C-alpha cells in the first residue's frame, strides 16, 4: 500500500500561525466589565443582514463568519438562554411576545419544569483578532427595555449596528440545560485549598509554579 501524500518528515513550520497575545487580568475571566478592554462588535437581527453587510464592505468579518457565528449563536442560545417555569414569568423578564417554548425541553420530553425561554432575536459578533482569537459571537435576546446577551452583563438599545463593546460581552453564559456544573449551589465551607504549602515559609505571593 502506497500513499505518496503521507510522509514521515515533520511539518516544515515549527511555530503557531497565531497565538493569544493579550493578558487582560482576572477581569477577563470573570463577569466584571473592564472599560479598557473593548473590541469591535456588530449586531445583526438575522443571518441575511449579516451576509449583506459582509458583501458590502470589507469589514473584519466574512460571509463565512456570518454563517458559522449565526449557527454558533443559535446553539449557544439554546444552551445558555435563561429558562422559566411559565410564559408569564418569562415575559415579565423579557417583555411581551419575547418568549417561546424551550425546544430542548420538548425534545427531551421533560414535561413541566423550566420550559420557556426568550426567543433568539439576533446575534452579535465581535472581533478578537488582536487576541489572535478570530471572530466570536453571542446570541441576543429581548429585555423589557432593549436587548442583551444571555448572561445579561451587557444590554443594548438595538439588535443591529456596530459598537465597541467590552470583550467579556463574548464570555459564555453558564449553561442552563443539563444543570450540574455551573448551577448555583449552597456552599457550606470555604478556604480548604491553598493553606498547606509544602514550602515551610513565605507563602504569600509565592509562585505555585516552577
Amino acid at each position, binding site marked *: 500500500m502506497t500513499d505518496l501524500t503521507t510522509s514521515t518528515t*515533520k511539518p516544515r*513550520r*515549527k*511555530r*503557531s*500561525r*497565531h*497565538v*493569544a*497575545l*493579550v*493578558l*487582560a*487580568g*482576572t477581569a*477577563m*475571566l*470573570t463577569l466584571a466589565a473592564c472599560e479598557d478592554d473593548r473590541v469591535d462588535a456588530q449586531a445583526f437581527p438575522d443571518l441575511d443582514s449579516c451576509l449583506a453587510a459582509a458583501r458590502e464592505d470589507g469589514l473584519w468579518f466574512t460571509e463565512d463568519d456570518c454563517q458559522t457565528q449565526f449557527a454558533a449563536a443559535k*446553539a*449557544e442560545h439554546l*444552551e445558555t438562554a435563561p429558562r422559566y417555569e411559565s410564559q408569564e414569568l418569562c415575559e415579565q423578564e423579557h417583555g411581551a411576545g419575547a418568549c417561546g417554548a424551550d425546544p430542548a425541553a420538548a425534545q427531551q420530553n421533560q414535561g413541566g419544569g423550566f420550559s420557556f425561554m426568550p426567543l433568539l432575536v439576533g446575534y452579535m459578533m465581535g472581533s478578537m483578532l488582536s*487576541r*489572535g*482569537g*478570530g471572530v466570536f459571537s453571542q446570541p441576543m435576546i429581548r429585555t423589557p427595555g432593549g436587548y442583551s446577551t444571555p448572561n445579561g452583563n451587557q444590554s443594548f438599545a438595538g439588535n443591529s449596528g456596530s459598537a465597541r463593546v467590552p470583550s467579556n460581552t463574548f*464570555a*459564555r453564559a*453558564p*449553561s442552563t440545560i443539563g444543570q*450540574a*456544573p*455551573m*448551577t*448555583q*449551589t*449552597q*456552599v*457550606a*465551607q*470555604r*478556604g*480548604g*485549598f*491553598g*493553606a*498547606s*504549602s*509544602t*514550602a*515551610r*515559609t*513565605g507563602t*504569600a*505571593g*509565592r*509562585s*505555585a*509554579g*516552577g
Partner: protein
Amino acid sequence: MQKIALSERPGWRERAAELGFTFADMGGEPYWDETSAYRFTLRQIEDDIEDPASELHEMCRQAVAHAVASEEWLTRLDIPRPYWDFVERSWANGEPELYGRFDLAYDGSGPAKLLEYNADTPTSLYESASFQWLWFEESRDAGVLGPTTDQFNGIHEALVARWAEMAPQGEDIHFAADRENPEDYATVEAIAWAAREAGLGAHYTGLSAIGLSEEGQFADDQDRVIGTLFKLYPWEDMLRDDFAPNLQPSQTRFIEPPWKAVLSNKGLLPLLWHLFPDHPNLLPAFFAADLEAARKGEPTPFADAIAAAEPQLARGFVTKPIFSREGAGVVITEAGRETDRAPDDSYSHHAHVVQALAPLPEFDGFHPVLGAWIVGRACVGLGMREDRARITHNLSRFKPHFIEG
C-alpha cells in the same frame, strides 16, 4: 546552538505593558531580555530536543504506571496514603494530561540531560507561547532575523487542539490560581484563552475562594458548581489541604490529573533512572537515604546502580528536595566540595534526591536552561531561561530563541 546579539524592538516595553505582560521586569532586573537570542539548527531542535522530550514524556508515563501499582514507590514519593487510590484511579481511568515542561541541560551537542520535569504547575507559558512568538514575528518583519528563520513554538495551537480533545464543546472549565501572583496568573490566562478558542467556557476563581457545597461538590467564588478544575497549584499541596478528603468524593475532574502527583515530584528522577538506567537523556539519580545506606554497606535495592554511578557522582552531584519549585533547596557539590547553594531553603525539610551534575553551559557569563514544553503527549515548543548563577531561579531571565539552518 549559539547566542546572538540582536537589536531590541523599539518600544517593546510599551507593547508588553499594553498587552498586560506586567512582569517583563522583576525586582529591578529585566525578566524578558531580547538583547540577544539563542540560535539553534533545525536538526538540534528536532533530534536533540523535540524527539527526546516526547520520548521522556512517554517514559514518565511508564514511570507513573509503575509507581501507582507500587506501595513502595508511593511511599518513597511521599504521596499521602489516604489518596493512593485517588491517584491510582485517575491513572487507571486514563485521565488525560494537558501540559508540562522539561528542564534540560544542553549545549548544542550530545544528548540533552533531564534536570527535572515540571509536570504539574509549570509557569512561563505566556512568555514562551505568546510573547516569544510576537518577538519572533516582529523581529523577522523588521529584518533583524532572516526570512528563512523559524521558532520552535507550536504551543498555543497545540493547547487549543488538546483542549478540544479533552472536553466536549461548551464544557465549562474553572481556572484557579493565586490572583496576587502575576506570573502564575499569566500562565493560567494563556491556558484559559486556549480553552476558549477550543470552544470551552473559561471561568476564573481564586483558589482560596473555592467552597464545598452541602452535597460535597466544589463551588467557585460565586457558588457555582465546579465540574472541571484547572489548578495552578501543586498536587503535593492539594493532597495535604483541609479539602483533601473531599477531592475524590466531589467527582470533580482535575487538570492536571491526580496521577501527575507522581511526576511533580523529584522522586521521579530516581524512579526514571531505576526503570531506564543509562538512558542517554537521564542522569544517575537516587534518594539521598538510599545513597547513605549503600555507602554504609546497609542493604538497599539500589546498591548495584549506586556503585556503578559512584565515579560520576564523585565528579559532581546536585541535591534537591523532592518537593521544591524554582530552584529552591538545590545544592551543588563538586569533587567533594559544596560549590553552590540556592539562597531559598524553604523546601529543605523534605526528603532529598541526589542527581549527577550536568553543568549548564555558559554563554557570555550566563547559564541557559532549556524548557521543552509538552502539550498532551508531544513536545511542541521551547522556552529558555538563563542566569549568571548556576542554579536557575524565579527571577532568571527569559530568553527568546530562533531556528536557522
